[in-house]
């Protein structure tokens, strides 16, 4: 089977960019990452088709010169699925934004609980008072639970400049669609 090197390189780049974007905190970027990954997988399906030939219509030519139709069918199905999921994700992002949460992936509840537990334990053991600049990880320490990411940005000494899209005004009671 011969494949085009350009397509392989493009596919690799799409996979890499997709993974990178998916690791972002903003949900819109996660969606873009998913779209890139989906396109990369579709491209992979097209690559495995091998050397392109004439359109595979029945009786239109010598079957040996035709493209392999099966990967095309698989790719079409995968595109439809990706399309449906993207639409659903967009609705989800909009709803998340509407609820005033910004379009970010929220902290895991268990992680929040663990983090608070360790903060409490540290406080109990250590009276000398560590400075805030020692915050070792991205897990932002806040006193309130359940936390929202909006609050966690206030943590001093922590720089999180990932751009997020926040609703301009707080949600009013009956504003939901």
């Amino acid at each position, binding site marked *: *089977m011969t494949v085009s090197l350009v397509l392989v390189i493009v596919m690799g780049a799409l996979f890499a960019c997709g993974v990178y974007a998916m690791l972002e905190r903003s949900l819109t970027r996660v969606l873009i990452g998913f779209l890139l990954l989906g396109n990369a997988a579709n491209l992979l399906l097209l690559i495995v088709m091998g050397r392109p030939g004439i359109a595979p219509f029945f009786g239109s030519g010598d079957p040996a010169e035709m493209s392999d139709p*099966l990967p095309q069918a698989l790719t079409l199905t995968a595109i439809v699925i990706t399309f449906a999921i993207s639409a659903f994700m967009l609705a989800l992002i909009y709803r998340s934004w509407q609820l005033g949460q910004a379009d970010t992936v*929220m902290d895991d509840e268990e992680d929040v609980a663990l983090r608070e537990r360790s903060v409490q334990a540290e406080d109990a053991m250590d009276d000398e008072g560590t400075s805030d600049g020692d915050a070792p990880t991205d897990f932002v320490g806040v006193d309130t639970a359940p936390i929202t990411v909006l609050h966690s940005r206030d943590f001093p000494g922590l720089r999180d400049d990932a751009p997020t899209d926040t609703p301009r005004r707080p949600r009013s009671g009956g504003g939901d669609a």
Partner: protein
Amino acid sequence: MSSLVPLLVALPLIGAAITLVFGRRRRLQVAVSVVTLTAVLVIASILLVAVDQGAPIAVSVGGWPIPFGIVLYVDPLAALLVLVSSIVLIAVLLFSIGQGAADGDEETPVSIFYPSYLILAAGIFNAFIAGDLFNLYVGFEILLVASYVLITLGSTESRIRTGVVYIVVSLVSSILFLSAIAAIYASLGTVNMAQIAQRMGELPQDVQLVLHMLLLVAFSIKAAVFPLSFWLPDSYPTAPAPVTAVFAGLLTKVGVYAIIRTETQIFPNSDVNMLLMVIALATMIVGVLGAVAQAELKRILSFTLVSHVGYMIFGLAIGTALSYGATIYYIVHHIIVQTTLFLAVGLVERRAGSTSILRVKGLMRAAPVIAVLYFIPAVNLGGLPPFSGFIGKFALFEAAAEVGTPLMMVLIVGGIVTSLLTLYALMRAWNLSFWREEEDSSETEARIAHLGRATGATVETERRAIPRIMTAATGGMVAVTVALTIFAGPLLEICLRAGEVLTHPVTITQIDEGAAP
């Protein structure tokens, strides 16, 4: 007989279309859903009898030759799982009808719930009877997209928060699966499982290993196998009770089923069984330790769910006909029992207004029926004799002891410890929530204070009336769990025969003959 097979998928899809069109007529939606799933139940029973006594059935949909057409393949394992799933789906449907009738549109937006539920059913059935990898992928996607809708039902803040994690993790696993399919097609020129199995031996070992691992990782995320199980305990507990129940019972099992197909059909003589053993042990132990640390019933159950997936991987990794049979019995037992427990906890939540074992007390006196409905599946899951959990674990350990390597012995010990810890977690919940008196001594309070920081320990919801149909649905499921114990003999024999079939994977010529009109 083979003309019945496509109906397993077509009927729920038609039902979903009808319920979607008549979104405002709830009674019609309910009737269509119940009739559809009951029809699937009947068809699955007929198919199970047919394939158990005869040979597996393979159907080429539309008469297209392999590898262009889609092949549906029903062996005893697939038929049994479709049968059990339809029982679970019907029971949970009745439960949700009661819940929807009592609460109005708030918890379950009626017009969307039934179509999504039927599409979920279609996806599950399609995955079970898929004869080629791409059809399996489509089945997965159908059930996953329906599950995205169900897990974010009502779009409250907490459901969006946990739903996002669930959805993103599922998307990644789907992309991996799709890439694996592309890689397999590139190297073998087919996506039909029987044909893949036939040609796989011609590939170099390292290519085989890459393909094998790609599939295993993709399926392990869906099956919640450690260390890819991190998403499950966070996303399941926030969904509505019936949704959690059906997810816990069925969705992870579809992943386990896909792993079984990979291991028995595509890579029958692989050398990753050792790896699977270690993973199974880690899944069992880590999962159950998570359950012990929790103070909220749904989270406890979610962690035991992860831990008991370990038993199934364990049984699969032993790799004998006996162990396959035991695994199948364990899967059937676990689908039913785990769903029942989640339904019972759904009743607790409505009755007591909380699922935290610190908050709920005195239920034994206040609601003896719920107490019984919780207790029976709880000791069953914990593996006390004479229940089916004990029989399933015993069969697994027997199959392992027959092989008798030191690693097997380690896993048997691990399995027993896991079983005891499961029992500990569930019985502690029983002692605190049901057995404890309303007026509690401060001594007990002090003893359980350390649990107070666990997630969800202080969550309270409003108390609601329990319609009779919810109790009846849960009671029906408890009766099924008891039936699993009473009819364990015949059922285990069916499972052992199904396991026997798995050791002779179907060949391409058999499919051609089976598909002949």
